[in-house]
């Protein structure tokens, strides 16, 4: 039930977002038309791009510096994976390639690739996630991010799904 409630809440937030985003602009700066609650949550990073999602259930968030991207797996993915017993991540300094696997997660005898949406170089790794993989499911889109990547070209991020599109995609996924 908790899951269902969360998804409904996410869906309604994205419907709100649809009202103000001009259709032609894929990545919009945070607009003044946002409800106060959302505006406050973005108050520290006004220039920040919107969080984007991949068909392989990763999320990517571009920081206000315009080049550092935080990457993780989505709540939907974490729920689908079940009990996570191991997370393998790259090292700082490793290169990641768009469409290539940069790590893997093991749950229920399954080794699942984690795929990078962009080319770049790893500048930070969330080591505590690797230490306690069972916690990854608790906050996969927040504290349990996986890596930060410095990307040369952010254009591919614009091609990814926004929250609304991803929510729809994830609902249809299974």
């Amino acid at each position, binding site marked *: 039930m908790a899951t269902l409630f969360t998804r409904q809440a996410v869906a309604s937030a994205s419907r709100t977002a649809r009202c103000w985003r001009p259709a032609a602009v894929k990545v919009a700066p945070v607009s003044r038309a946002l409800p106060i609650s959302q505006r406050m949550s973005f108050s520290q990073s006004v220039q920040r791009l919107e969080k984007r999602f991949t068909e*392989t259930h990763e999320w990517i968030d571009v920081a206000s510096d315009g080049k550092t991207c935080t990457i993780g797996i989505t709540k939907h993915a974490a729920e689908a994976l079940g009990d996570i017993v191991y997370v*393998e991540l790259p090292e700082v300094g490793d290169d990641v390639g768009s469409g290539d*696997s940069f790590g*893997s997660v093991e*749950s229920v*005898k*399954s*080794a699942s*690739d984690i795929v990078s949406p962009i080319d770049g170089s790893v500048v930070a790794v969330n080591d505590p996630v*690797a230490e306690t993989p069972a916690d990854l499911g608790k906050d996969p889109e927040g504290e349990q991010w996986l890596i930060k990547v410095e990307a040369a070209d952010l254009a591919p991020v614009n091609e990814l799904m926004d929250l609304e599109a991803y929510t729809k995609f994830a609902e249809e996924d299974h």
Partner: protein
Amino acid sequence: MRPLRHLGRRSILHPPPHPPLTIPLTSSRPFSESAAANPSNKTQIYVSRSHDPLTNLSLEHRLLQTSHPDSIVLLLYTNRPCVVVGRNQNPWLEVNQARLGPQSHIQLVRRRSGGGTVFHDEGNVNFSVICPPKAFHRDTHAEMVVRALAALGEGRARVNERHDIVVDRDEGKTFKVSGSAYKLTRLRSLHHGTCLLRSPGLARISGLLRAPGEAFIKAQGVDSVRSPVANVGVEPAAFVDAVVAEFRSMYGGQAVEVDGFGEEVLEFEKVREGYEEMRERAWVYGQTPRFVLSTEATEDDNRERPAVPFESKLYIEAKRGIVNKLTLNGTSLDSPSIVGASIWEISDWATRLRDAGAGVDDVKEVGAWLDGVLATQP
């Protein structure tokens, strides 16, 4: 438990040739990467003639990478004796390495899928199904194998809660006959499993899968779950036929059946690359998740330790099979002969300990002990 009719008759060192297929082949041709990728080949069936575990695993991986995203693929293969650890396992925790190697003719292999450690030999047939992620469910193809076993007269096989196939035998005893593991990529999902049919090696399994370092090692990654195992007691060739028949009845269509390939698949560059990568000790040992070996209880691992043949307290931390830290009685040995060294490159721990400045007794006693507990295959 059924009697093992073939026990002891055949030498495990010289497995017999694979029995000929009895299924009528709609088309038989050599393996082809372009045929695997061809969108018109929706259903593909492969039966490997190779008994080499790395050749078969590498071919399987290549099919995972190249078969058309909408296709469904069945691969069946039998390996010569080997112990196969899961992608995220620790061989020093899972396997008694003294019982492996050239003398015993049992190879140590690390696969790319998840899950626990299994034993293969010529009495075991491996099935592998590659399908689109949307069609993937953990039990679908284990159920397929259960139906194949039922068709062969084993009606008491079923899929359990761990997605393994077990057989309920007399007096309420249940034995595992098949273990499953999965690899999920961007475009494809792979489910592969073992099926013990007439393995002559069952009696050896528990000894092989008991590592001398088990009581001292605490590892990240995946632990195996021990289960009592048994042979189903059917001929491997009949099992291959029955699984192919079930697969066909599920997916119909004109199957591309490729028969009669063996080591020649290694002529495909990418198959060979995968083969070479899996053969590297940097994969077999270097893929090992972080672990701690300690002769004393630690905060993370407060198990009482068995007695060791030396006085000193030994503590080792390793990541990716490389020593990060080694202390004796709390004193760190910071020498490059130990810190930063790959465990699989260390054949003689005494020399390394001496070079790092350890005391005479430790060099001899701890060195000899570590040679056993952190043994590797050449």
